C-alpha cells in the first residue's frame, strides 16, 4: 500500500476574471522509503498540489480529487480536527524560506517543543530531552544552548536545520520538502540535502522534494514528476528521465541546462514550444 496516493487532483482558485486552474489532473503515489521529486518552473502548481493534499489552502481554493488517501485513510472526508492530528505528526512539511517560516518572537526551543506538546504525551522534561536529541541528529552544535536562541541569532542553514528537526519531531511517515535549499548557498545546500537523505534512509520515511533545480533532482530523487502549468508532463524514475526523457518539454528543459553547453548559445526550445505542443507531448 502506498503512503500517499493522489488521483486526478484539481485545484481551482476563484479570481476576478473567473476560475483559475492552478493544478489540473495530477496523480501521484509515494511509497514508504521512497524519494519523489516534483520538478517544474514557477507557476507549474507543484507547491499548490502539495498544499492541497495537506489541506493547507485557503477557502478560496476549490480542491477536487478522485482519490486522496494517506496511509489508507481518505483525507477528503476527514474532519478538520482529525486532519490536524495527522498533519505535523505523520505528514510534516519544510518550507522554502527557513528564516521566514520560524516565528521570530519565540525561541527555536519553544517552537520545536510546541510540536511535541501538541502531538505527544511527553512530559516537559522528556520534551526537552527529545528536542536536544533532535538538534543533535540534524547536526546543530551545543543543542542545549541553541534551544534558547531566537531565529535571528542563527544563519539560514542553521534555521533550515531547525525546521528539519521540527518536522522530524514526531517521526513522520511522510516528509514534504518544498524547495528546501533554494535560499541557501551551494555548500550549505549540499549539507542540507545530505542530511535529508541520511535521515530519510534512517527513518525509512517517504520524502517528497519540490524543486525547480534539476541538480537537486539528480542528487536526491528515486522517481521524478515533471509539471508544467498545473499539468503533469512526465513521470519516470530518475535515471531514465535524465538518460532518455520522453516528453518534448523535459527534453527542452534538460537541454537548457548550462552544463550541457560550454560557450556558444544555449538551446531555448521552450520559447518556441506552445502550450498545446507541450501538453500533447506529455507522457504519464
Amino acid at each position: 500500500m502506498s503512503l500517499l496516493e493522489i488521483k486526478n487532483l484539481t485545484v481551482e482558485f476563484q479570481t476576478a476574471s473567473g476560475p483559475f486552474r492552478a493544478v489540473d489532473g495530477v496523480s501521484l503515489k509515494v511509497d514508504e522509503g521512497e524519494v519523489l521529486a516534483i520538478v517544474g518552473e514557477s507557476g507549474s502548481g507543484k507547491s499548490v498540489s502539495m498544499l492541497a493534499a495537506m489541506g493547507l489552502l485557503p477557502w478560496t481554493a476549490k480542491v477536487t480529487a478522485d482519490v486522496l488517501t494517506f496511509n489508507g485513510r481518505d483525507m477528503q472526508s476527514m474532519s478538520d480536527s482529525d486532519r490536524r492530528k495527522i498533519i505535523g505528526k505523520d505528514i510534516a512539511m519544510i518550507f522554502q524560506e527557513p528564516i521566514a517560516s520560524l516565528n521570530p518572537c519565540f525561541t527555536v526551543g519553544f517552537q520545536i517543543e510546541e510540536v511535541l506538546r501538541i502531538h505527544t504525551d511527553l512530559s516537559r522534561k522528556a520534551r526537552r530531552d527529545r528536542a536536544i536529541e533532535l538538534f543533535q541528529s540534524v547536526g546543530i552544535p551545543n543543542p542545549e544552548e541553541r534551544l534558547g536562541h531566537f531565529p535571528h541569532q542563527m544563519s539560514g542553514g542553521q534555521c533550515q536545520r531547525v525546521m528539519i528537526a521540527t518536522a522530524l519531531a514526531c517521526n513522520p511517515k511522510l516528509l514534504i520538502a518544498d524547495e528546501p535549499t533554494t535560499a541557501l548557498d551551494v555548500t550549505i545546500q549540499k549539507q542540507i540535502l545530505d542530511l535529508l537523505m541520511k535521515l530519510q534512509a534512517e527513518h525509512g520515511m517517504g520524502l517528497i522534494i519540490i524543486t525547480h533545480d534539476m541538480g537537486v533532482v539528480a542528487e536526491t530523487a528515486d522517481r521524478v514528476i515533471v509539471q508544467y502549468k498545473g499539468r503533469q508532463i512526465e513521470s519516470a524514475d530518475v535515471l531514465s528521465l535524465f538518460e532518455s526523457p520522453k516528453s518534448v518539454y523535459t527534453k527542452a528543459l534538460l537541454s537548457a541546462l548550462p552544463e550541457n553547453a560550454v560557450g556558444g548559445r544555449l538551446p531555448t526550445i521552450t520559447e518556441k514550444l506552445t502550450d498545446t505542443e507541450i501538453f500533447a507531448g506529455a507522457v504519464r
Partner: protein
Amino acid sequence: MTPVLEAKNLKRDYHIPGGLFKPGKTVHAVKGVSFKVEQGKTLAIVGESGCGKSTLARMVTMIDPITEGEMLIDGGKVDIASEPLTSEMRSKVQIVFQNPYGSLNPRKKIGDILTEPLVINTKVPADERRDRAMAMLKKVGLEEKHYGRYPHMFSGGQRQRVAIARALMLNPRLLVLDEPVSALDLSVQAQVLNLLADLQDEFQLTYVFISHDLSVVRHIANDVMVMYFGEAVEYGSRDQVFEDPQHSYTKTLFAATPRVDVDAIRARIERRKRVA
C-alpha cells in the same frame, strides 16, 4: 591594449559605529583584490553569501568608494572618494541587479525607466531619447508596444530584459551583472544568458558576472575569480580554474555543486542500494 577594468589590491572597509557600551567595529568586506578584464571578455566572480562579491560590484560601479587600492577604468584612475563622479564616468559602467521585481520602479512606465539614464547623464532631446529606447527594446527582444506599460505587466524574464536594456542605454563599456539569472526559471535563464552573449558580440561589451551558480559561470565566463571571506582565493582562466582548482575552498565548492550527468546519478543510485 589597455584593459577595460583593472583593479590593484582593492580594499573596502565598513565602519560600524559603537554605542555607549560597545566599541566601534570595522568590517573588512574586501581585503585586497586584484584583477583585470579585457574588452569583450567576461570575468565571473564566484563565492557564497557574505564573501564580498556584491561589495566588489558596488566599488566597480562607483556606488561605494574604495578604501584602499587602485581602480582603473579604460586606463583612467577612478576614485570617487576624492573627486566627484562625472556623467562621463557614470555612463562607462552600468549594473544589472539580481531581482528584477525589486530593481524596476513600479510607478514608472518602461519608457520612462529606459530614458531616465539619458535624462540624467546626457543632453539628448526628448524625441531622440524615445527613439533610442524603442531601438533598445527591440534589441533585448521586447516590442515597441511595451514602451508604455508598467513593470507589473511583465514576467520575470521580461523584466530582466528591461533591466538589461536600461543598463545599455548609455552605451557602457562595462556591465556589472549581479546574479542576473538566479531569480529566473531554467528556460528563461537560458534565454537571458543567450541575450547577454548576443549583446556582448554586438557591442563588444565587457562583463563582470557575479554568480554563485557554477554551471552558469562555466557556460559564460572567460576568467573566473573565486572569493572567500573578502579574499580572492583563486583567479585564472575558466579552464584553469575548473580543471585544476588549487585552493581547498574552490574544491569544496565544486564538490558541493550538484551534478546532473547520468553517470553521477547511476553512481548515487548504486550507493543507495548498497546502504539499503
